[in-house]
């Protein structure tokens, strides 16, 4: 029996056909996943038949014995109500001034259903794995973490008892730590006979939870089949590229460049922030962290969000507050942030998580890339700076054609390449990569990682990599330091940390990667409460 059957679906906006000949089915109690890179048409394929995205549909999409293609908005509305929808941004999808219980009641009554009592509401929240559901009913959204909010939204989406749930990138806005847990909560809903249609760019993540996978590329189906078959015997290049793009924890150990003398030494770094409230006191974000990094060496600082890893990197790079401890650069102590002079800055550069926010919207690419030269190598003329900027743009595989564009005209991956070019243009010895790939699509992130590997080999760069993805850390870094609550709780060679983690934090990060056993299969996490 099929719950939702899509056959030869086409979606066009104006004269441009964006999706053609896409077919898949969702069965009750089963999960079908649509997977593809950004722009592959996966969201359109899932949302357009329900009238939730722009575009004219053709072909066929049958749900609950109705043909959706060709229905007017008014006719679609009652049918759409028999499905539930979960979207990407849990942080903005709840109304801030209403308690969770009120919003859940609204969702449950949306179709004229009876007013649910407290126990029923609590049961709904319990079903999606939210801890202490009774208390959460009386909480405002800002009291809940991102993961909890996404659980509430899933609960709200199924509160009116739909038979089909469509989740469009339900975990992409969340910390890697939470992604698997949310997927798990979603997948568990199948047990009650709900049919699931999941949309994601993260093949590895989805594959662990879905029954069927449909891989899309350029608006066409590249491959579809049973999840295990697709993962173990991929038949199309698209699938293979998607699988290869995410770094594996148990690939053969990467060959990393040799290291030299000590470059930078951090000792007892302390950073505190003022606690909220008018006499909040101070909260330690980094509490006495120390490490050593040699020339040409790559060190990863891994940890969950809020563990203080970014704060530590910014304190070291003297681009963030630092309250205590010393940083030594080639044997010489670095001055505090405000006293950093040109010669101190020249040695290290940083790349940040959000590529578009990293570039001044009013500057051209060439201007942004040349900025470090203007300050660090003042003897260059403007023309010489531009030549150097274009050289380094070529090194990051963009080239002179991009020189006069502005950030608004760049994709996320291109903008991140520009940010990397800017970091490299003054030939630093150390590159600080602050979650440099985590805001990007899997395929794009994979290509940025390849670029970084190449630069690491050819330029003898030392790298301080900040990430929550331990598989990325292992691929690029000689050593890994695991942070938890502002302290480095474990440090050592990457292989040692990955194969024999000692601390609970390291074990949790490896579990979150879903690759703990190293056999590529999915191993469910033990039930965990998400703070």
């Amino acid at each position, binding site marked *: 029996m099929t719950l939702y059957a899509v056959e030869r679906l086409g979606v066009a906006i104006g004269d441009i056909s964006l999706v053609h000949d896409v077919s898949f089915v969702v069965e009750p109690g089963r999960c079908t996943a649509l997977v593809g890179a950004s722009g592959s048409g996966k969201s359109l394929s899932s949302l357009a038949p329900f009238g939730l995205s722009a575009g004219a549909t053709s072909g066929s999409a049958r749900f609950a014995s109705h043909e959706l293609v060709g229905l007017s908005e008014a006719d679609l509305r009652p049918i759409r109500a028999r499905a539930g929808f979960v979207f990407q941004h849990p942080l903005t999808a709840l109304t801030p001034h209403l308690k969770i219980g009120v919003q859940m009641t609204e969702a449950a009554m949306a179709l004229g259903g009876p007013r649910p009592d407290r126990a029923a509401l609590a049961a709904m929240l319990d079903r999606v794995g939210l801890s202490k559901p009774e208390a959460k009913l009386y909480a405002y959204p800002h009291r809940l973490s991102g993961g909890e909010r996404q659980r509430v939204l899933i609960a709200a989406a199924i509160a009116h008892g739909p038979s089909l749930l469509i989740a469009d990138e339900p975990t992409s806005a969340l910390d890697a730590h939470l992604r698997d847990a949310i997927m798990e909560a979603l997948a568990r809903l199948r047990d009650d006979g709900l049919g699931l249609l999941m949309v994601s760019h993260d093949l590895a993540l989805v594959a662990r939870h879905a029954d069927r996978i449909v891989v899309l590329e350029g608006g066409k189906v590249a491959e579809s089949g049973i999840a295990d078959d697709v993962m173990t015997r991929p038949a199309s290049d698209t699938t293979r590229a998607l699988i290869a793009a995410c770094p594996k924890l148990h690939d053969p150990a990467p060959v990393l460049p040799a290291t030299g003398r000590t470059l930078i030494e951090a000792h007892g770094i302390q950073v505190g922030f003022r606690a909220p409230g008018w006499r909040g006191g101070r909260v330690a974000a980094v509490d006495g962290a120390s490490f050593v990094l040699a020339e040409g060496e790559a060190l990863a600082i891994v940890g969950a969000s809020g563990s203080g890893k970014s704060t530590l990197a910014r304190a070291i*790079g003297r681009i963030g507050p630092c309250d205590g401890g010393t940083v030594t650069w080639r044997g010489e102590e670095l001055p505090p942030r405000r006293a950093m002079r040109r010669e101190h800055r020249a040695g290290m*550069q940083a790349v940040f998580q959000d590529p578009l*926010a990293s570039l*001044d919207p009013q500057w051209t690419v060439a201007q942004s890339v040349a*900025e*470090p030269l*203007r*300050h660090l190598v003042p003897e260059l003329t403007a023309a010489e700076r531009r030549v150097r900027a274009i050289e380094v743009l070529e090194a990051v595989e963009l080239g002179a054609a991009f020189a006069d564009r502005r950030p608004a005209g760049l994709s996320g991956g291109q903008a991140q390449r520009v*940010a990397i070019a800017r970091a490299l243009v003054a030939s630093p010895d150390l590159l600080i990569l602050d979650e440099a790939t985590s805001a990007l699509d899997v395929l794009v992130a994979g290509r940025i990682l390849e670029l970084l590997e190449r630069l690491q080999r050819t330029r003898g760069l030392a790298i301080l990599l900040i990430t929550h993805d331990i598989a990325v850390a292992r691929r690029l870094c000689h050593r890994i330091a695991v942070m938890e609550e502002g302290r480095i709780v474990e440090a050592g060679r990457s292989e040692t940390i990955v194969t024999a983690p000692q601390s609970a934090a390291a074990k949790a990060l490896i579990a979150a990667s879903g690759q703990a056993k190293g056999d590529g299969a999915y191993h469910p996490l033990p039930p965990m409460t998400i703070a």
Partner: protein
Amino acid sequence: MRVAGWTIIAVVLAALLLPFVLPWSYDQIDWDGVRAAPLAHGHLLGTDSVGRDLLARTLIGTRITLTVAGAAALVALLIGTTWGAIAGWVGGRVDEAMMRVVDALYALPFMFVVILLMVVFGRSIVLVFLGIGAVEWLTMARVVRGQVMALRQRPFVLAAEAAGAPHRAILLRHVLPNVAGVALAYLLLTVPQVVMVESFLSFLGLGVQEPLTSLGILVHDGAEDMDVAPLALLVPGGVLVALVLALTSLGERLRDWLAR
């Protein structure tokens, strides 16, 4: 939008150029045509109670009002942007102290202060500039401070710092250009406010001095004769309303466009 733009251009051009072609100057008394009706004695819109051409006076009044408003808005822009940018950039205690000063000034009954200044130092157009500008910068300072604080945390500002850019360069090259759009929108919104304030002060008899005039004075004088010569009220009043509406709608459009 387009209407607002053309209204402003038309009013400004008329105020700048028309006085040169009019046969009457704003302070010239036509002894034959005191309280002339429209079109009588060669006065397009008639004359006032002492025989001065209403059109000429309205144009010169518009000039004065726009000059005062423009200058006061620029003073507000200058002080407000500097104050707000410093507070937002330095942050911490300095920011606290600077913004408390703004709060304290906000709390003063501004009209009362301006009137007091006028009474103590005598009526002068410079004082009108200063008085109005000194109050209108407060909102500008708050707006700019908020923008600067948000920009300060942006990675491209951190990247500039890592690139060795001194604070002055970061402020001038990255922060201010990105604040400029919003500041400009609020500048456009400040101008009509100042027009209103100036007109109000002039209406009270505290603005510019005779024989110079402003839209506010003309409205005041016109109001006295409205039963016999309604145009003396309606013409300057209409120009005032059109200007304020056009500037406000333009400013709001710009602000919304920037907030996209």
